[in-house]
Every structure is written in structure tokens, then in C-alpha cells.
């Protein structure tokens, strides 16, 4: 099997101009698989539908942690309510400011092992799939690969 055989369609995406508030709302209402709602990451596409970035929950956590926290060991000196306050402060931040820009994608004919290896070595949860023209055609989640493994193991037993 190849990437295109297990990938899921792109049902929703962000534009670089979306705000953080819009982002979390979009993630909340985007459907996952057949009947579940809520995703932990979204692709960022520009007007020509080119992939320019990806936003995950981790990026959102990073966006609300003040930059000075990483300069010194200040974790011990935070207060109750700080997280919520900081989140409200950055609510209007643009997706372009918080997204991960270096997105690793795979061609649609990539073998699943290549995808699995990337997920593990680059610590990814999802990989966008692109066609020959470098346009986004789908996305593979770590669970899709896991299902492929499950299928390989259990089908044989059957």
C-alpha cells in the first residue's frame, strides 16, 4: 500500500491570516474520521492552496507561553490563572506567527514504511500528502498507519 491508499481527505484547513481564536474554534468543529468532531492539528494553506504551514495543539501551547519563560528557569514563578490570561492576550495572534513552517510532506506514492519512519524520527502526528504538482491531496494520521499495521497482523491470522 502507498500513502494515497490510506490517506484521509482534507476537510478543513486554516489560512495564514486566521487568528488563534479562529484556529481553536476551527479545530474544535472539524470532523475527525467518520463521526467524531475535534482535531489536534490543521494544515495552513495560502490562497492558491499551497501548503505553507501546519498548526498543532503543541504550537498553540507554545504560542501562549510568554517568550521570556524560555530565557530563564521561570516555571516555578507562575500563578494560578496565568495560562488563561496569556491565552486571552494572544487570541488575535495570526496563524502565520504561530504555525510550524517547515512541514514535512510525502508524495502520494510514498510507501507506508517511509511515512511510519518519518512519524517516528521527526516526532510527527500527521503528514500531508502531495501530488506531482505539489498540491495537497490528503493527510495521513499516525492512527492510519497504526490501522495498516493492525490490518497486516490480524488479517494474516485470519
Amino acid at each position, binding site marked *: 500500500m502507498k500513502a494515497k491508499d490510506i490517506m484521509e481527505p482534507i476537510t478543513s484547513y486554516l489560512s495564514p491570516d486566521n487568528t488563534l481564536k479562529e484556529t481553536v474554534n476551527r479545530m474544535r468543529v472539524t470532523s475527525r474520521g467518520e463521526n467524531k468532531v475535534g482535531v489536534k492539528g490543521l494544515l495552513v494553506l495560502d490562497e492558491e492552496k499551497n501548503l505553507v504551514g501546519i498548526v498543532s495543539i503543541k504550537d498553540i501551547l507554545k504560542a501562549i507561553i*510568554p*517568550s*521570556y*519563560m524560555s*530565557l*530563564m*528557569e*521561570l516555571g*516555578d*514563578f507562575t*500563578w494560578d490563572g*496565568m495560562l488563561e*490570561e*496569556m491565552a486571552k*492576550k*494572544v487570541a488575535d495572534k495570526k496563524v502565520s506567527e504561530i504555525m510550524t513552517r517547515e512541514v514535512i510532506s510525502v508524495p502520494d506514492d510514498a510507501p507506508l514504511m517511509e511515512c511510519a519512519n518519518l512519524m517516528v524520527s521527526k516526532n510527527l502526528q500527521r503528514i500531508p500528502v502531495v501530488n506531482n504538482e505539489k498540491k495537497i491531496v490528503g493527510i495521513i494520521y499516525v492512527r492510519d498507519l497504526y490501522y495498516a499495521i493492525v490490518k497486516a497482523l490480524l488479517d494474516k491470522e485470519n
Partner: protein
Amino acid sequence: MAQEVVETTQQFVMNSTFWTATIIFLLAYIIIVSEKIHKTIVALVGASLMIVLKILQQREAFHLEEFGVDWNVIFLLISMMIIVNLMRPTGFFEYIAIKSAKLGRGEPMRIMVIFAVVTAVLSATLDNVTTVLLLAPVTLLIADALEVDAIPFLIAEALASNIGGTATLIGDPPNIMIASKARLDFMDFIYNLTPAIIVIMVVFLFVLKLIFGKKLHVKPELKQRVMEMNEREAIKDPLMLKKSLFVLGIVVIGFVLHGKFNYEPATVALFGAGLLLLLSGTKEPHHVLAEVEWPTIFFFIGLFILVGGVVKVGLIKWMSLEMLDLTQGNLLATSMIVMWFSAIASSIVDNIPYVATMNSLIIDMAKQLWPQETGLALLQHTDLLPIWWSLALGACLGGNGTAIGASANVIVVGMAERAGKKISFIRFLAYGTPIMILTVFISMIYVWLRYYVLKI
């Protein structure tokens, strides 16, 4: 200490060597000011050209202080950086900052004053950049906790750091350079500059209170956030902290006594760095050494050689003659011109290349004024000392003039911007320039009163 100054009796002629050196020097300075290429690269290329084009022999550039690298400055800087790098992970600086905020009982004005004093004292002991790098993040945190604008605090710290750094030999690179060139010791700076800085600091704090005193008010429940922080949690490595403070104590005592025992400040700092590395028990000194700010160190190395080139061909001597012409040999006028010119120059350009040039200029000038004197008698001629102090005060305090006047300012502005609090060039100017003018004015009165009226 009393190492003889190498005689420069050669008369300068404006031949092709003179012009080549002058052009390299000016081009390098112009490119450094333009910031088109990293200043360290410019300095190193310029320095190497001075040697390649045979303006300086390699031996002169590498081994003669007069024309080349001043290793006393280099090793003092490297050693102090190593000591700070070893101290940083202990959590000592976080402890000091949180403790200061609590000492201010969550009152923003009190916190601003205490932070300014702590910044000044730390800057007098460590370098200014290190100090603001260590205090600004905590300042941003405290401002968020109190829900007040962090910018006044940050600007106050940058200004305080430049003021405090002026107080001691090791506080600010211009002082390190002046001390090494003029063979002045740590206590000379304490006797001559620290009193001026104490006066300036008191006035500065008063001005802070005047500007911000009325504006800063905080709800009691927000103060509680600061009061609930436990500074003891900052200490990550108590054993290493004890070792660090022990070594820092030795280093400070060493600085106080170095003149008496004929040690250079660099020897004291190098011993401290070596001892702390040993006590730290690290098997891998690689990362501690890698964290030394090598670009800064190599910038100094390049500059020393660049300036050495134009000293050798006589450009600096020519400049010093022009200056004597201007002041007609009036030393009070010279002091005042040096101070104000240094302040203005340092507020616009990097004060390190400026002082590197001025040091040589002042020595050349002294040679014209007192041709019969050599060595310490020349470098520390009673009438020359006030000019050294004027240079130090002007060059260090001038850094406050603009957002780009001193590295500490650049760091603070950059850090604020990353935290989403942009300090515009104009906003910094609005605080910095008046403070610069005020502090240099006080320095002017101080130098005039102390060295030309009271003569003490």
C-alpha cells in the same frame, strides 16, 4: 604594572602606507556602523588586511599591546564570561530577581527602584549585557503578574545597567580597555568613578520616581501573586551556588588587591574562571567554553589590530595634534570635550571601537604634552588622569542616549519585542537622551569640581 611603553618616535608621513591604513580603518568603521556585515567579520577582515598589506608585522599585531591585541582585555572578558556561564544554571540570578521583586512588596514603583539598583550593582560586577539578559525575563514576568506595562521597567534597567557599569573597572568594556591602556587598577576606578556613579544613581532614581511614581498602581490581589512566589525554588544547584559565590568572593577580593600585589585584572579573573571550572567538577568543559561570546571576543581582537594599524602610520597622532590645536592645550577644556564628544559618539556608535581609538589618541596627545615623560609617569600624569575619567564617563554613560547606544539597550529592546512589547526608537530616545544628558552633565560638574577646583 609599570611595564614600559614602547617608544613611538617615528614621525609620520602621509605616504601610501598611511593612506592604505587610513582607508582600511575608515572603511571598516563605516561598514561596522552600517551593520551591513557582522561587525566581527568586518573587524577580522580589516585586521588581517593590516597585516597582509604589511602595515603591521604579525608580531606587532599579536604581541605588542601598542599596535595589536590587548590580551589583558581579552582574557578578562573571557574569564568573566566563563564564571557567569558556570553560575547561570545554579538559579542564583533568578533568585536575586524574584527576591528583589518581593522586597518591593509587589509595589511597582518600589520594584522599579530596587530592580534599577540591583541592575546597577550587578552591572558593576558583571558585564551589562549579562545583567540585563538575566534580569529582563524576570521583569517581564513580574510586569505580567502585576498587569503593568513592562516597558518603563525595562528601559529603567537598561539605563541603570549602563550607569552601574561605569562604576568599576570590570563593569563596562570601555573601562576594561581604558584600565589596561592606562594601567589603572580596580581601586583607581572605585576611588574616581564610583562616587560619581553613586551621585548619578541617586539622581536617576529620583527622576524615575518623578516620571513613573504617579502612573503605576496595582490591585492588592495582583501584588499577592508576586508575594506568593518562592525565590528558594529558583536555586537548582545549591552546592554549585556555594562554590560560585566562594570563587566570586575571591575574584572580587582579587580585583580590590590586584594593584597592590602587581597582578593584572585578567590574571585575577583567569584564576577565578580556572578555579570555578575545577570546582564545578565538570568533565565536559566544552559547553561552558562554547558559551563564551566568541563574536564579541574576536570583535575586540580585530579592533585592536585595526586601531594598531592607524596608530603605527600616525593617523591617531595626527588626530591628537588636531585635538590639541582645538583645545590649545587647555586640559579642562580637553576633559570636557572628550567627555561630551565621547557621550555623543557612544550614543550613536558602538563605544568599543570608539574607545579603542580614543585610548591611543589620548596617549599620543600625552606624548605631545609631556615629551620628557614615559611609562606610568606619562600614562598616569596627574593632569592626564581627569581625561581618562572623562573618557570613561562619557563613553559609558553615552550609551544611554539611544536604543542602539549600548549592547544592553539592544538586548532589552529585542527581548521586549519578542514578548510582544515593542519599544520604538523614539520611545527609548524620550527616556534615554534626557537621562544621558543629565548624567553626563553631573559627570562634568564632578570632574570639574574634583580635579580642577578641589584637586583631590
